[in-house]
């Protein structure tokens, strides 16, 4: 383990703001993409089921 303490880890030698913003935004983007896809998939399945029920 490289870090001495938690606060040191969070501070990142004074660059904490930049480093953590980068990591957090990246994580947010990925999570958001997964969620958006999940909803899109649910909508697509619901729609095709609906059509099958309506017509068939």
């Amino acid at each position, binding site marked *: 383990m490289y870090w001495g303490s938690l606060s040191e880890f969070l501070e990142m030698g*004074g*660059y*904490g703001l930049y480093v953590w913003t980068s990591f957090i935004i990246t994580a947010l983007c990925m999570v958001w993409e997964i969620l958006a896809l999940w909803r899109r998939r649910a909508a697509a399945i619901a729609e095709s089921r609906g059509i099958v029920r309506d017509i068939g």
Partner: protein
Amino acid sequence: MIPWFGTVAALAIAVGLYIGLLVAPTDFQQGEAYRIIFVHVPAAWMSMFLYVVMAVWAAVGLGLNARLSFMMTQAIAPTGAMFTFLALLTGAMWGKPTWGAWWVWDARLTSELILLFQYAGVMLLRTSIDDQRRADRASGVCALVGVVNIPIIYFSVQWWNTLHQGASVSMTAAPKMATVMLTGMLLMTFGFWMYSLAVILSRARCVILERESLQLWSKPSSVAEVAGVR
């Protein structure tokens, strides 16, 4: 398949983060800010790699007239655009403390920005054409033409002697530490790669489903087949 890729991605990213944030030592020149490269470099690589993959699918689609390949191009574009955006954003986060500026008009940054516009162009062209077949093919041609930008981004660092550092992250630290950093970065890249595979495949499935329902509306005769399959 998709859950498998997802799990591998989560594992690789977790280990990569552990190495990158907790194990890897600091860089003598850049201080702790260098740790941004653990997301920046993989995102930048993925942004270029995904564009090439997208263009290859477009070429296959145009050459063989295969609808499935066009669905793949459609599925890749948003993820590629997201990684391009992330590469630019994390680049700015890295640039501010090291260069003292959020943005510089350096060849690599500019060409990466152009890549973002190209992704946007491909996606917008698709959405503004109503006819599915024409949308597929036109955006395919557009993606293929844009491929000329990829070597420009990739080699920009060598061609123009600019602010952005060389391709293989310059290791000012001792070689042993470099190996740790490299391991972390490669793991992150692998994780991002697996993540992209999972996301893109699942988006492709959405696209297939959506197009299928669109067809069902106009062709009720095949409802029975589809209903039988499901």
